[in-house]
């Protein structure tokens, strides 16, 4: 086991680059899917009925499909339609599509529970719909949905590990690579698990901060 750790240490650049890819994929996905999720939720809350139902069904369907299957569709399936991506790009696209579906649902249900009176009061003061969303709805959703979004971020980090199967060189890919090439499975996977763990603990820490911020603001 010590020998295994020594190998992981000697190959730390590989592990770190895998870790870096995991973090980068997560952050890039968040940067794209958070705004998309908000837009999607607003759309689902405001769109005309029929269109809304079609979109809701699509979002629900996406949430029934395993992440890996979606990754296969993007990486192996879309070329059939003439859309071809590198593994990394396909991985990011999969992460974004999959997460946006969940985030839309999260933001939509957070928006549903806002008190009606508050919105009516805003309208009574002559605020336009975009302004109401920007000034009243979104700031509240951002705080109240924080714990659920945090959970979703953790799910996303873990989903990204599946991208190793379509050869994205993220953390689990690196661990597996070390394990098969140096015949020492324990240390690489243990280190990978610890790194995932610390990522999750960081997310939980941030969420904890946000919850405290919300308490201090809204009681």
């Amino acid at each position, binding site marked *: 086991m010590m020998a295994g750790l020594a190998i992981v240490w000697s190959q730390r650049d590989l592990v770190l680059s895998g870790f870096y890819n995991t973090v980068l994929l997560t952050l890039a996905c968040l940067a794209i899917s958070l705004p998309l999720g908000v837009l999607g939720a607003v759309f689902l809350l405001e769109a005309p009925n029929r269109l809304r139902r079609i979109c809701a069904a699509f979002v629900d369907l996406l949430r*029934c499909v395993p992440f890996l299957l979606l990754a296969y569709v993007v990486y192996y399936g879309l070329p059939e339609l003439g859309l071809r991506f590198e593994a990394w790009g396909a991985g990011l696209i999969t992460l974004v599509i999959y997460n946006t579906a969940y985030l839309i649902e999260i933001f939509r249900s957070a928006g549903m529970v806002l008190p009606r009176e508050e919105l009516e009061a805003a309208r009574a003061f002559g605020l336009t719909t975009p302004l109401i969303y920007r000034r009243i709805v979104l700031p509240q959703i951002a705080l109240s949905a924080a714990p659920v979004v945090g959970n979703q971020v953790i799910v996303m980090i873990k989903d990204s590990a599946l991208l190793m199967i379509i050869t994205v060189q993220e953390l*689990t890919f690196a661990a597996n690579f070390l394990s098969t090439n140096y015949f020492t499975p324990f240390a690489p996977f243990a280190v990978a698990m610890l790194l*995932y763990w610390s990522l999750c603990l960081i997310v939980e820490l941030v969420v904890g901060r946000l919850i405290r911020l919300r308490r201090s603001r809204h009681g």
Partner: protein
Amino acid sequence: MTLAAFLTLITGALTTAALSFSGIAMGVPLGLVLALVRWLRVPLLSAVVAVYVSLVRATPIVTFALFIFFVLPSFGIELAPVPAAILTLTLNTAAFNCEIWRGALEIFPRDQIEAARAHGMTTPLLFRRIILPQLWRSSIGPLTSEMTILLKGTPAVAVIGVVEITRAASRIGAETYRPLPPFLTAAVIYTLLIVVIVAGQRLVERRIARLYGYAV
């Protein structure tokens, strides 16, 4: 897609269903045992369970599957892919179920527990006769969600060579050079499986509500 391909997918679906079912059948009770260890604050063991749950909840199933499949042999335990997959799924879902059971235990009405103690019940009797019958009813929603999450997590075990729906679909796609039809069929099968689970939950919940009049 040919009939043979479709049959391959159905076989994969059965594998997925069997893997998920085994994981659930063992992971739900195991999660309860872990939750009890924490609820009863068993010295030392309780801390071990807390760390285990936190670590496993943070570990991707695919990483965990690789860990179990490749590491156990160095402890002298050789597992074929399917048992290794079932072990992975069980240990994974048990960690999540532990938190579900524990949450339900923590909010179990204190006054009912006190009434039981005042009527001379010991802890095992209290648990068996008063808490457990209500606990599973109030946990059924979150437990079902976890079941669907587990079902959607099963493709991860493809990495250790188990052929379930997703793996079967990608094989068919590779052989026919037309991957989209098998993938879409697979998506439909997953959706059906999840619909079945959720319908089962609704059914049980409705029965409970009709009988005992409390919403779960």
